[in-house]
């Protein structure tokens, strides 16, 4: 028997590896179609339940969070709506419809606190607001590919073009690494997490504990920065340097 050519084995291996991803995508699309039909028939609660179950299964998709935000908004749950819009924004940073709905939902809250993101690092890495984590990682993978490929070509041909190319690609790879590091810090850094008030009204205390002085009140849909936690309490900060403690159950972390 002739041995099977290597490329045939590689294609087979690739198809087998791809099969679970394809099946998973088909299941997700079927559930989303059902939820969308329910939404169109104004059965927003049932639609939101299906969207939530997909999120619970580990599906991370910007449009799914967007639709879930819409479903909650239709139910009058502005806090959950803004929370899901913000989650969607991390995956679809350039989507105009999402931005419009987020602005609209924010304008319809009591406090009208728009989710702003600022800081030296964010200003320095200004492009991070326009790309998502996957795109940032893909750019790094491309730069990495370009670097190693140009390095390989330079090793074979040793000419000026590939020398310049490999140095440029190295600079791009380093820039990609720094960009990914900055994004991870900004998204997951201990002082960079954002939260949305989910209850109708929440009292922000001077310290963790119900007996402390109430500093100010926030209403559903207000976006705050979560600075830390202690027991059942989160330390939060508003944009205008107002800090305080509130119950964890009143907040949803983005």
């Amino acid at each position, binding site marked *: 028997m002739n041995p099977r050519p290597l490329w045939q084995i590689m294609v087979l291996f690739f198809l087998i590896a791809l099969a*679970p991803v394809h099946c998973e995508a088909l299941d997700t699309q079927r559930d*989303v179609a059902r939820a969308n039909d329910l939404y169109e028939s104004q059965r927003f609660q049932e639609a939101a339940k299906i969207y939530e179950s997909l999120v619970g299964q580990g599906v991370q998709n910007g*449009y*799914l969070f967007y639709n879930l935000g819409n479903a909650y908004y239709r139910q009058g749950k502005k806090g959950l709506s803004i929370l899901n819009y913000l989650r969607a924004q991390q995956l679809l940073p350039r989507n105009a419809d999402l931005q419009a*709905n987020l602005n*609209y939902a924010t304008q319809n809250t009591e406090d009208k606190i728009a989710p702003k993101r600022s800081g030296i690092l964010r200003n320095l890495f200004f492009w991070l607001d326009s790309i998502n984590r996957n795109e940032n990682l893909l750019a790094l993978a491309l730069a990495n590919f370009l670097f190693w490929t140009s390095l390989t070509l330079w090793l074979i041909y040793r000419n000026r073009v590939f020398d310049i190319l490999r140095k440029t690609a190295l600079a791009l790879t380093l820039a990609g690494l720094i960009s990914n590091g900055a994004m991870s810090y900004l998204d997951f850094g201990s002082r960079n997490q954002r939260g949305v008030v989910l209850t109708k009204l929440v009292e922000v205390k001077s310290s963790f504990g119900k007996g402390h002085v109430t500093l100010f009140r926030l209403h559903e849909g207000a976006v705050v920065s979560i600075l830390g936690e202690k027991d059942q309490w989160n330390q939060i900060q508003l944009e205008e340097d107002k800090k305080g403690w509130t119950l964890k159950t009143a907040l949803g972390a983005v």
Partner: protein
Amino acid sequence: MRFYLISRYCAYILCGLFLTAALPAAQVYAKEIGLTASVDKTEISLEDSVNLSIAVNGVKTAPSPALPDLKDFDIRSTGTQTQVQVINSQVSKSIVFTYNLVPQKAGQLEIGAARLELDGKIYSTKPIIVTVKQVAAQSRSGRLVFAEASISKNKLFVNEQAIYTFKLFRRVNARNINLKQTFDGFREEPLGQDKQYSQVVDGLQYNVYEVSKALFPSKVGVLEIPPSRVDIDILIQDKSRSHSDPFFDRFFNDPFFGGTSSAHKTLRTSTIQVEALPLPEQDKPAGFSNLVGQFAISARLGKHELEFGDSTTLTLTISGKGNVYDIPTPNLDVLDQFKVYPDQPDFKKWIDGKNLAGGKTFKWALVPLRDGDLQVPPISLSYFDPAAGKYITRQTKKISLKITQAPAREKLKIVQAPQSAIAPQAPEVKILGEDILPIHTRLSDFSNQALTGPRRNYLWAAFLAPVFLFCGTAWWVRHKDRLKYDLAFTRNKNAYRSAKKRLQKTQSAGNGESIVEISKALREYVGDKLNLPGAAFTPVEVELKLREKRFPEESAKSMRALLEKCEEIQYRGGAQRPVASDKLIEESFEVLEKLEKKL
């Protein structure tokens, strides 16, 4: 407490002993101040250098000694070392200043006395004579490194182009290559990038570094191109560090891993004489501007028909081979017809075959002074063609222009629109209500964006695949280089294949020389495998060599036995040599395979 006291007493005793030993030593410093000079070699060739060490003995610190006039040498590098010696409890200290001297000429060269003033007393060294021998012109054969220079023409006209080629040949790794060339009496122009390639000289492969220059003699007479001088540090492999395995030899003998020592060489090419002839006075055209070579001239006009008042551009290009930087600005005789606005000429040079070529482009904006039919007269260029040995004048064609009278221009009517007509009306759309935008319905957009499971694996593969590609290529390039440059490795790699081929040929031929062929194939296999010169080994030597190289004892013995068997058959038959049996050939194959497997 008691232990502490004992320790303290011991410390006092040790300090006392040290001071007792140190005091006389300090006196020794004062007594033995001296200045000595020494060289590492007293007989060298003009290519080598000599290390001069000037030691100041008996002092802790000393200023640099004043060196004698070393006009016959170039001083390359300096360094300072401090040496401390303890002999019979006497400490002697010296500071050694080292200089690397590169001789400038052959003969008995004197390194004069170096002087040093210390505490008002002057110390000096004894002069040293160094014999510097001329390098034999024919001695390039087998050398590790040598340099050559040549010129394309030894007899040429002033301003005619000649190609000077310098080549550095080396068989060893080298660094700090510094080339010095002077071309007094010539104008020099580089001819492209320096080249690097391999060349076989007298059966040995050399890496060649080639520099070419276009030279143009600037005066008449016999001119001398002084020797090109190249300073180079060659890296020589330390024999003590050589490994039995050629792979490791090559890998670890890389300068990065050490194992090499450096030797400085100063190579000089021979002086080249060139006779520069004057340009002939006969038939020299008027306005000739020392342009020598082969040139062409062309002219082009932007527009041939234009209205009076408009301008057109005249472009003139002179290009060719020779002293292109001497291309003159041509005389444009059109001032009675045009107002002329010259542009900055554009000069470019390039390599045409092995010659320097170039061109100058001149541009003039011409504004006609009157209407009607005008003409740009021919523009001429004279140059001397050394190949034809005569002056040549080339000229452009006459260019005609037609200038028409411009039609009367329409008068500009300036009107202003009323403000009310310009100001845009703001749209007055009444917002009746607001709502969120609808949900997203394109199902294909709902794929999971999370990097988990297979997606994460693909990402890792995307990151790692080019790294593996690079590693594989690096291995391949290194392997290819070894096959190209490492003779031992190539012999080792091809040994089995060559031997097998030879045995198969012998098997199919089956003639009277077959035993000799088998024996030869086996010996050559051993020679190639172990990188030994030739193939004239006795069976005992073969066994010993194989054992030395840590081949299994059993395989070495088998090889010896086989070779002895071949010899026995070979010499047993007398005049009529017996044909090798298939069994013997099969046995040879087995022994070779066994040796290959054991590697």
